[in-house]
């Protein structure tokens, strides 16, 4: 069989129906002021879509990482304002890897920024954890916060699960108005932690990068469709603006950005299902493309919308602001380009085309 992407179309369809029916304009808009959307979370969770890619034996819904990635892509297309990536691909995954119980509600994760200071010390009763972590999505609204914490000598790496009520939370938001909070931890745990292999940190970073790639792929496709629709409706100088060549250029560039991002994101998600570490090149390359596309496609979409795109009363900002926010998550400047570049250097001149064609 020559098909690489073999996710059951029914999964995509069901997810599309689910997100389309829950993430309407008003709900996404309201979630920003409220900081939470039960109206989206509850039905998605009910349907088991918050646990795809996690084994049933551990309380997950089963399925592969590729399936989970596909669901995220659909969620991104609908600007779903919930910690879906965190619960199924990141925080929830950490719980499973550490063989800790998977909580029933939303699980968030400490993404790990350079100015985080979390450390762990073994104590007589268990584990002392303290320090601060930044940009934690929906920390205050989650059941549990998963974090990867090294001990002071960096000999051991722990997965730690803490409850929001046990940490101090300082509110903050990303560019899309979604909660990205700072947490201060100072606790002594007698359970809810486990030592994991040191490669888990690397895996989490790759999964995080992949999760944003999928969300961005979805948002880019939806943004392209929205722009196409708007420019067919909006008339100036007696005809739909989509008939002007200058506007068509934006439409085509936006569609190209969406197409290449979706395609490479899906390829990366297939490779990642077997082994995220082995899919480093694909994830990095897809992520680099997603970042570049987010930067350019938001420009084309906004330009084609004129002033209409600049208000909160029209849907474009639900997508563009998320793209602007997501491209900085699990990605520092040059990080993923460097991974791809290092690959190129390591395979050398003779290996270069084979790498491109891999």
């Amino acid at each position, binding site marked *: 069989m020559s098909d690489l992407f073999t996710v059951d179309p029914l999964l995509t369809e069901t997810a599309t129906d689910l997100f389309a029916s829950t993430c309407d304009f008003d709900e996404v808009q309201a979630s920003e002021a409220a900081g939470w959307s039960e109206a989206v979370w509850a039905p998605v969770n009910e349907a088991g879509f918050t646990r795809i890619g996690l084994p049933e034996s551990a309380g997950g819904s089963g399925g592969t990482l590729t399936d989970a990635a596909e669901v995220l892509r659909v969620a991104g297309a609908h600007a779903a304002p919930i910690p879906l990536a965190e619960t199924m691909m990141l925080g929830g995954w950490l719980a499973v890897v550490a063989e800790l119980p998977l909580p029933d509600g939303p699980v968030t994760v400490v993404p790990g920024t350079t100015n985080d200071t979390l450390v762990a010390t073994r104590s007589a009763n268990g584990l002392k954890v303290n320090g601060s972590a930044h940009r934690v999505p929906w920390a205050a609204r989650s059941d549990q916060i998963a974090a990867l914490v090294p001990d002071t000598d960096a000999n051991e790496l722990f997965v730690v699960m803490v409850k929001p009520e046990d940490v101090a939370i300082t509110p903050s938001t990303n560019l899309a108005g979604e909660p990205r909070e700072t947490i201060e931890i100072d606790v002594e745990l007698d359970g809810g932690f486990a030592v994991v292999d040191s490669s888990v940190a690397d895996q989490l970073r790759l999964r995080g990068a992949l999760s944003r790639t999928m969300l961005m792929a979805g948002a880019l496709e939806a943004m392209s469709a929205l722009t196409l629709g708007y420019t067919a409706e909006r008339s100036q*100088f007696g005809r739909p603006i989509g008939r002007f060549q*200058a506007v068509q250029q934006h439409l085509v560039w936006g569609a190209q950005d969406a197409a290449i991002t979706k395609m490479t994101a899906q390829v990366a998600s297939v490779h990642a299902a077997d082994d995220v570490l082995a899919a480093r090149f694909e994830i990095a390359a897809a992520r680099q493309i997603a970042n570049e596309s987010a930067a350019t496609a938001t420009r084309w979409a906004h330009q084609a919308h004129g002033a209409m795109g600049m*208000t*909160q009363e029209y849907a474009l900002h639900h997508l563009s602001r998320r793209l602007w926010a997501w491209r900085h998550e699990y990605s*520092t400047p040059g990080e993923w380009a460097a991974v791809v570049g290092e690959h190129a250097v390591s395979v050398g001149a003779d290996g270069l085309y084979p790498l491109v064609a891999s």
Partner: protein
Amino acid sequence: MKFEPTQLTSSELELQAEVRDFLATELPPGTYERALGMGAGKDVEFSKKLAARGWVGMALPTQYGGHDRTAVDRFIVVEELLSHGAPIGHHWVADRQTGSIINRFGTEAQRERFLPPICRAELAFSIGMSEPDSGSDLASVSTRATKTDGGWLLNGTKVWTSGAHENDWFVVLCRSAPLEDGNKHQGLSQLLVDLSSPGLEINGIPFLDGSPGFNEVVMTDVFVPDELVLGELGMGWAQNTSELAYERGGPDRWLSTFGIIEEFLRINEGTPLGARAHEMLGSTVARYWGLRNMSLTVARMIDRGEAPAVESSLVKEMGTRFEQDVLQKVLELVELEPSPDSAQLFERLVASAILTGPSFTIRGGTTEILRSVVSKGLGRRGVA
């Protein structure tokens, strides 16, 4: 098309030094919330202080409270204000365009009534051009003025009217005679309309970053007396086109993101920056320098009595794209997750530029429309 190199004269350099001194005293770094160029907020006191120095409406005639200064003098003042991110919102529109068009097209009575308070920074104006169905195609406006005893009744809806919720007046482009023979450039007029008129309703439209500023202005039988028809009845299109020329080509079209570069340097003072940062700074600063030269030349042309509509459109098209490019370059260099509620000014400016940046190439005439203006000009006049 011509961009002849020019430089500041010694008296112009004196003015520049005065403005720099004033800003160093009034707005030392860290004492005010720096804005992204002309997106700045309203600070009536600050505007009045500028007016007291003679820097509002400075190119208007002395007899109406102005100072008979040149377009280059005004350029010198506004480039300093904009590069500081000073709070110029209150007087900005009146200073840039409304004062000039009232002076140029208005009746004697209108000049006497409006120009002195504009020069004292007492009157704030908005722009009433765009409508729900008329954006780039402005000549298609459907707001209607119908003749009544002693004046006109205005009916229609304006949209994206920046500052209407806090300003005093706006200039409304409307149809004052029915469309004839499909010539839509005829039968348009500009009316000076008090924003507190009965029958006028202002509804806020939240901007992309959640801030107020955008408005919809609905007019139902708003009475406008005859003496407030700006200039000549039916000449609205020509007047409006000339008004747009004041909106283009100035430092406000390439300085919006300048504060980001300046703050980037400030927060990195004393730390080695590395080759990539030097490269970014080099290409950015070179272009600021180049655009500033072009933009200054446009002001010189205005002072020579020329009408640099094509040149100013060319500068705006280039300058506004550059404003967005600057932001991208910084984002590719600096590790941060932009957050509007950051404790650091640099990060707040970056967040605000990401959210409001798309409008740089839309407001005041879109890039696409400007390109067609420039290419038509190239066709007429050639490149050199």
